[in-house]
Structures are given as structure tokens and as C-alpha cells.
């Protein structure tokens, strides 16, 4: 079943995601001034978003049907590498997505 047609699931999901936005952006705006962010906590917080995004991208691109998918026939992997190189060189999101999708499409159609 497609969970995107289950409004109960979606409404609960969106409510929780909105809470996730409000409590993080609001955090220290809403807390009384006497509560500060401890340096050690701030260090951990700095790394969490990058790691969470990495975990999502890694499972999305490097796995398939709950199995690792690390072969040369994984065209998404080549597209990701090309996109990463493009972003590091240009810092341009449009170029990054265009190059990645172009590499993926060329491999998918001809390889």
C-alpha cells in the first residue's frame, strides 16, 4: 500500500515534522536567558546534521531493497560522485544536480 494515500499517517508525520522545526529553531529563542548552550553539546550538535544527511543519502544511493549495492552497475553511485566533484568545483546546486542527472541518464540509457 502507498503510505502517501494514508492521511492519518501523513497528518501525524507532518505534525511531528512541524514540531521538529519549531522546537529546534525556537529552542534558545524561547528558553530563558539563563540557559546557555554548553560548548560540549554544541560540538555534538555541529556534527549531527551532516551525519543524518549522509546516512539518508548513503542508504538511498548505496543500497537497494535493504541490501548494500556497491557494484559498478550502481549508476546512482557514479552520478553521486560526478555531482560531488561538480559541487566542490562550482558550489552551484543547479550545476550539481544537472551533471549528476546527466551522468545517471547516460549510463542508464547506454551502459
Amino acid at each position, binding site marked *: 500500500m502507498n503510505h502517501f494515500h494514508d492521511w492519518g499517517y501523513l497528518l501525524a508525520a507532518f505534525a511531528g515534522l512541524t514540531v521538529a522545526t519549531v522546537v529546534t529553531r525556537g529552542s534558545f529563542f524561547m528558553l530563558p536567558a539563563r540557559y546557555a548552550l554548553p560548548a560540549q553539546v554544541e560540538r555534538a*550538535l555541529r556534527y549531527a546534521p551532516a551525519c543524518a544527511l549522509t546516512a539518508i543519502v548513503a542508504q538511498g544511493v548505496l543500497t537497494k531493497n535493504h541490501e548494500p549495492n556497491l557494484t559498478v552497475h550502481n549508476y546512482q553511485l557514479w552520478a553521486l560522485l560526478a555531482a560531488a566533484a561538480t559541487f566542490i568545483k562550482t558550489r552551484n546546486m543547479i550545476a550539481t544536480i544537472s551533471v549528476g542527472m546527466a551522468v545517471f541518464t547516460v549510463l542508464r540509457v547506454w551502459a
Partner: protein
Amino acid sequence: MMVGMSKLLPPIDHAAYREGIGVMMPLGPAIAVWGVVTGVAMVNAGLSIPAALLMTFTVFAGSAQLATMPLLATGAPLPIVWVTALLVNLRFVIFAAASRRSFMHLPWRQRLLASYLNGDLGFALFSRRFANAEEHGNPEQWGYFYGLAVFNWIVWQAGSVIGFMVGGLLPSDWGFELAAYLALLAVLIPMVQRMPAIAGVISTAAVAVAAVRLPMRLGLLLAVLVGVTVALLGEAWRDRHASHS
């Protein structure tokens, strides 16, 4: 219950408001593209347009929306979806701690609205503009903040809505879900500039792939836990190393 705008907005200096808009204007195309990519990815993953509209106008966090889309599409357990969004959003806690001094003395409703609009770009520009200000919390700063925030909100939401409409027209067998991961990559790379962070994300990727068979997508959380630990250990090791030399 109606709350008048005067209760939601602090006093605003209009010249500073226009200055904020002017500073954000050159970034308009990039903000719009980010919105379009997010919008296309949401509809392409299978969200209906009403659901997508509801999501964008409540959640209002592009990276978290993109990151949770593959989880929602496979019906992942909601706690995993929420925790993933929280982890991606933790950077906002740092932003809030860093810019609170300009907002701290406002009534809570005004702080709540301002914080909700305090995204990546606005925070960066606001911090740069008032880094060396002698006074924090005045109509000039609030005006500049709202110039940035209003422009960003309108352009990003407009881009998202365009993305919802365009996304429905794209053929679904082109593998466009990859574009969402590529967009996340562009958000991710600037966060990973130093050795501890690089070690952290490499460990995260390895664990995320190796632990993908764990039930309920728990491999995601395990991967983040390992990655953050490795990054913190790397930082401690680097600091110790630096103090010896």
C-alpha cells in the same frame, strides 16, 4: 482566537527591512531552485499536491523534508521519521543560540514567529551583518531580519509550489528521486570541511550501508550515533595533537 500582526511582529525599521530584502535579492534564483527541487522531489516520491502544500506550509524545512521523503514513501515508523528530521534540524539549535541576543527581550509570540523563520541563509546573513553590533535587539535588526526572512519565505514557497506542478509532469521512470539526494549532497558538502567531520560522515556512510538490514530503519540512527562519536573523538585527538606540537 485572532492575534493581530502587531502582536506577532516587533517594531521594524523600514529602511533596514528594505536593506534585508536587497541583500537577499541576488540569492533569489538559488532559493527558488532549492524550492523547486524540494517540490519536485516531494511530488515525484508520490505525495499528492494537497499533501505537499500542507507539508511545505507547516514543516518549512527543505533539508528535513527531502531527508524524510524516502522514509515516508516506504511507510517508515513515525518515530524514526521524526528523529531523522530532528537530527537534520539540530543545526537550528546552534543558530538559535547564536542569534537569540537580538530577540530575547521580545514577547514570546514574536520570538516564536521569528525563530520559525530563522533558516540557514537568513541566519548566516543576519549574523554577518550584526556580528560586531554594540547593541542587540532594536528595530533596525528586527527590520533587517524580517527583510531577509520574508523574501526567503516567499521565494522558497513559490519555488516549492512550482515544483509541485512541474513534478507531476515528469516521467516517473527517469529516476528523478536521485535529484533529491544530489540536492542533499549540495547541502551536506559545505558542512564537511574539516577532518573530524570528514571522518564522521565516512563512518556514518559505512555504518548506514552495512546496517541497512536492521529493522525499522534503525540503521540510520545507529549510523548517525557512530558518525557523531567518531567526529568528536577525532576532534579530541586533533586538539590533543595540536597542543603537543
